């Protein structure tokens, strides 16, 4: 009985496909436009995502026509330095996969080693499973995935989490997509120590560092989102700041910029308090000027601890 109804209800397979219309109607075009508009730089990443989207769109059309049945492997690895937008892109990727119908819900669950690996024997498996259950129907983003594997300690529980992950990545390909992220060189070592991952991850996307010019544009966008602006001298100071900051330790691209701007806003508020004599207008409240940025320790050679370490 069930067979008969299944045959009756099976939709007629389309004979042709209009990719351009599919591209618009599936919402993929919108996600890619957002990606272009919101993310500065990252040209190779955008290119790779566009290619992946094209592949998935064609694959979906092929499935509709009955040419393919297997779900393609969608697990990915994002490699790049800190602050290069891996998490942001992962969020967009989840939206993209959802619009294309490769994940049912399209939410992003972001975890690190602590969320997966337990403290004692028998603690890891339930913890990892808990996270995997939450990620079902969406995207599991494992930040700094190489910490899962600690070669110097063979009794480390990370191995257990890795085994469960590998199993789920293989058996539940329809249910979730795993994205692993981290520094390029350490991820390479991680993958060569765990060949199972390499073979199960289809898309390796590298995130380049931002150029000074891009970072300046990012700074201005961040400020604009909070209704602040740089005056011309402040803009020049910011450009100098970026060039200086890059040479110092713990440089984390866009994240360093965000922190610098937070501190600049703090100094701006202090300056207004100390110097203001009369009423202030909106422009005064939302302008970051040169001294707000020049006061940074970056212009005096960085943090004392780092200077001491460099000797």
């Amino acid at each position: 009985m069930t067979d008969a109804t299944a045959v009756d209800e099976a939709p007629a397979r389309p004979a042709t496909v209009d990719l351009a219309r599919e591209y618009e109607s599936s919402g993929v075009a919108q996600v890619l436009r957002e990606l272009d508009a919101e993310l500065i730089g990252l040209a190779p990443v955008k290119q790779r995502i566009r290619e992946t989207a094209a592949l998935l769109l064609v694959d979906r059309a092929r499935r509709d026509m009955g040419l393919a049945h297997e779900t393609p492997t969608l697990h990915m690895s994002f490699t790049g330095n800190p602050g290069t937008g891996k998490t942001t892109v992962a969020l967009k990727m989840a939206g993209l996969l959802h619009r294309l119908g490769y994940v049912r819900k399209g939410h992003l669950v972001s975890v690190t080693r602590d969320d997966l690996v337990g403290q004692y024997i028998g603690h890891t498996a339930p913890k990892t499973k808990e996270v995997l259950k939450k990620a079902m129907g969406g995207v599991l983003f494992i930040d700094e995935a190489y910490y899962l594997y600690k070669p110097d300690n063979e009794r480390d529980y990370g191995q257990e989490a890795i085994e469960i992950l590998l199993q789920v990545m293989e058996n539940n390909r329809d249910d979730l997509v795993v994205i692993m992220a981290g520094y390029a060189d350490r991820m390479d070592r991680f993958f060569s120590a765990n060949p199972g991952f390499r073979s199960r991850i289809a898309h390796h996307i590298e995130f380049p560092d931002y150029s000074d010019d891009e970072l300046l544009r990012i700074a201005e966008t961040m400020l604009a989102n909070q209704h602040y602006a740089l005056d011309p001298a402040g803009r020049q100071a910011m450009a100098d700041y970026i060039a200086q900051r890059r040479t110092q330790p713990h440089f984390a691209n866009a994240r360093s910029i965000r922190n610098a701007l937070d501190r600049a806003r703090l100094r701006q508020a202090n300056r207004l308090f100390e110097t203001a004599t009369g009423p202030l207008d909106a422009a005064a409240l939302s302008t970051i000027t040169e001294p707000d940025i020049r006061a940074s320790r970056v212009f005096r050679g960085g943090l004392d601890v780092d200077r001491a370490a460099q000797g």
Partner: protein
Amino acid sequence: MRITQGCFSFLPDLSDAQISAQVEYMLSRNWAVSIEHTDDPHPRNTYWEMWGNPMFDLKDAKGVMLELDDCRKAHGQSYIRLQGFDSTRGFETVMMSFIVNRPTVEPKVHMQRTDVDGRSQRYAWDVRR
């Protein structure tokens, strides 16, 4: 004897696809889904053994179905039920409960009639295999 309790009790057993759809409904109402099992389906046996903690923060029914598969593997010859708990202030109760697994040979609910205090009668039920 076929034990009936909870929602859908007069329907044939739900298939996994149907269970999955019901779980989707529970999750869409933001209810926490829990799995419980017992070998004693007596209607007065309210508290069944819990299979893990109630699952909060799930987005997709697949997470529940994975646990249900595990529970079936461990307790295939028990009754297993799914429950949806609504934590909204004012409800704070189980909103939905249905049986998703039953043993191949189900126990009988046996009625015992006893005479007490002259010709008064007392009734009691117990589950017998």
